[in-house]
């Protein structure tokens, strides 16, 4: 199931919430949440619920084992458990890619939803226990909920075990947190249904355009689409978690206003960068030894995590290279530049990054770059047609990705004009209504001839 579906918003969410609310103890609340999480997950592909249960059982038992064992055995248990998690991830996600490298035919199976996310959650648990940061979870239900909770299983954020652990004993569903959650959910829904899906249409309509303006719009619309899609989904996930009394850290913090590439990665998909920092970069030695190697490994893996394709690997290494470049060469100059220039510098480099990311092959990525700098064909009427039809979308989208919107909001609240509450409440309500209209519209298919 996805958050931006009618059945989730109007059926699954309220029913789950009411049931969780009326059962008396935390244990029962967690049980209800766990069962509904399995239902939520089976909505995508019932068969893979088994895989999820195997993963939970394996990691639960490993956790107990890690607490019992000492010394070398402990090390072996830990690494074999990690290997098992990575094996499942690799088998589903990278088999076809590897076979493809050797020119072999791949298998036809769907990638289990959220596999990359819940595998990383599980590794976070094992690592935290192994480092003795937290005790192993004795209660299988708590661990099951940590891995499978529907609020975050399909697209993150990758919650860290050490942050979540205390919450399983106690996640009071209080009114203030609920309200914050619902408003965040609404915000995320608006981002996804209104903006991401509209930008997706722009993106697909420009796929064959070869003019310079068209190619820039094409890349820009993807840049907007992926931000609104991913950060919207994260907002909804955090909002849903809040409604059930869980607190998760923010996952996106105005990444397109970043002042440098380094800064961008502190603001984009924060939970993933933190995960790589804590569980790969620092264990490798961080910046104390082999800094360049560590950076390249981390960014190679970051790229690979996003998908099984050379384009993603190149995309990851592109960022690794840029971060090294900033560290050793650019930082001295960047600091002296005016803020606006630094933001434009980051924005454009991130835009180029997305071209690798969305292309099917490295060749087609360079094809798009070719069009972006094709001064022989500056603009054509198709590009103009798409631009003219979406000016408000681009303007609003641009404003909402930046900090301007938040600053205006902050200004209004501090000055406090008379009807601010009513105005904001109605804005959100209208936004919700229009989003629902857009979700309904996405299921709309009208036929010229009778299609019964």
């Amino acid at each position, binding site marked *: 199931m996805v958050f931006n579906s*009618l059945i989730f918003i109007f059926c699954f969410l309220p029913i789950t919430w009411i049931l969780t609310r009326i059962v008396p103890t935390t244990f029962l609340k967690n049980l209800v949440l766990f069962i509904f999480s399995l239902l939520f997950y089976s909505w995508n592909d019932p068969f893979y619920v088994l895989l999820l249960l195997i993963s939970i059982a394996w990691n639960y038992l490993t956790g107990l084992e890690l607490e019992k064992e000492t010394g070398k055995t402990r090390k072996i248990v830990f690494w074999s458990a990690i290997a098992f998690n990575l094996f499942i991830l690799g088998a589903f996600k990278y088999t076809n890619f590897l076979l493809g490298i050797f020119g072999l035919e791949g298998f036809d199976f769907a990638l289990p939803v959220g596999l990359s996310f819940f595998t990383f959650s599980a590794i976070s648990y094992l690592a935290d226990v192994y480092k003795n940061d937290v005790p192993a979870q004795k209660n299988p239900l708590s661990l099951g909920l940590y891995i499978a909770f529907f609020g975050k299983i399909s697209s993150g954020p990758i919650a860290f075990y050490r942050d979540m652990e205390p919450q399983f004993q106690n996640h009071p569903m209080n009114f203030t947190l609920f309200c914050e959650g619902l408003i965040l959910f609404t915000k995320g829904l608006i981002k996804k249904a209104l903006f991401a899906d509209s930008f997706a249409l722009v993106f697909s309509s420009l796929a064959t355009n070869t003019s310079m303006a068209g190619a820039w719009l094409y890349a820009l619309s993807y840049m907007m689409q992926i931000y609104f899609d991913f950060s919207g989904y994260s907002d909804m996930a955090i909002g849903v978690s809040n409604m059930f009394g869980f607190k998760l850290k923010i996952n996106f913090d105005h990444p397109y206003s970043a002042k440098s590439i380094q800064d961008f990665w502190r603001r984009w998909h924060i939970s993933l960068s933190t995960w790589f920092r804590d569980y790969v970069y620092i264990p490798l030695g961080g910046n104390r030894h082999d800094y360049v190697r560590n950076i390249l490994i981390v960014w190679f893996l970051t790229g690979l995590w996003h998908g099984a394709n050379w384009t993603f690997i190149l995309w990851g290494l592109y960022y690794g290279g840029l971060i090294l470049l900033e560290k050793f060469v650019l930082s001295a100059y960047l600091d002296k530049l005016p803020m606006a220039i630094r933001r434009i510098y980051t924005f454009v480099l991130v835009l180029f990054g997305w071209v690798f990311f969305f292309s099917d092959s490295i060749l087609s990525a360079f094809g798009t770059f070719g069009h972006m700098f094709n001064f022989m064909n500056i603009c054509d009427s198709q590009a103009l*047609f798409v631009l003219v039809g979406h*000016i408000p979308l681009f303007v609003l989208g641009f404003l909402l990705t930046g900090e301007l919107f938040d600053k205006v909001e902050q200004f209004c609240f501090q000055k406090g004009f008379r009807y601010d509450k009513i105005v904001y409440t109605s804005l959100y309500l209208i936004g919700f209504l229009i989003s629902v209209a857009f979700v309904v519209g996405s299921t709309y298919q009208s036929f010229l001839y009778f299609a019964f």
Partner: protein
Amino acid sequence: MKKSKGSIAKMLSPILVVVIVITGIVNLILPDRSTSPMENRSLQAFPSMNWNSFQNGDVFRELNSWYSDQFLGREKLIQLKYLVNKMAGTNKIDDVFLGKGTLIEDVSSVNQEQKERNLQAINAFCTSYEIPSYFMITPNAVSVQSDRLPAFSTPLDQNQQIDEYYDGLDSSIQRIDVRSTLEEHKDEYLYYKTDHHWTSLGAFYSFQAMASAMGLGDVSKEDYDIYPVSDDFEGTLAGKTGSVFLKDQIDIYVPKNNSEYIVSDLTNVTTSRSIYSREALDTRDQYTVFMGGNAGRITIEMDNDSSRHLLLIKDSYANAMIQFLIPYYRTIDIIDPRYYFEDVSRLVNSQMITDILFLYNSNTLMQDTSIADCLVMPTQE
């Protein structure tokens, strides 16, 4: 600031909760609908639960569609989406341009392989008889009224598509090219604003050109009683986009010198004394007022002295043209290849056909997949 934002959350949340819960409950209570006239399709019913459908995930997919298909105020919400899009300057929804005061269907691409098969079959069919054959390809609003398209629109070149089709026809088939005629009148009400068909007026101008090509004499508007039969028609393009506020008027043109006639629908075995269907005006697709929509074969027999018998092979554009043809023929046999599966050549002989007319609109013709199979006689295969 934080405090103020929190208080907004506290004001907004209860309202949202009420909206969500009430909508959720009403959704479950409201009876399901089986069809959607606006979308022209059947809606998903509550899925049947069994182990098999659960295992392969069908149940969940069907539950999703069921819930969204039966959602409260579905059509109103779709119209709201259209309004928001319209206000945001959207100039195209799927393959429909949001033009100046009108909706215009984009040009179809050409199904090249099928086109070659169709042309071969048409040429073979027409050259196997010593009967005059005519072929009329009607251009669509998108090329005739291209000045009403949104700025910078770049539809495919329909004129070129039509030229190439005409070029593929055998030289014995007479082409009736109405493009320049319609071009002259392009500022008039030739096409419905909310539907992909042409109006009776568009058909009338084309008929003038056709009449001179087929030797039917001069015709003028005075030869007809013109009755407006509807002013609230919302057609297929309105359905596709969810448009609101746009409505069309349907006129019918009844020849003043009409004789009595009988319309027999041989597919559905019904007869009628009128080519117009009054009941159609109570449905969403009011264009079916002409001929009651498309049928495999319809025969019209006139009580007149004409010695000509017409075979009309056509798509739905022709439905608005038939009203003009009636006075000139003793019988008209109308075949829609999409729904006709019998031997057309036998019909040519038994009905003593004297003229063969193909009438298609360009968009349908370029995508057609049924002409060849309909015309190729079983013996030839």
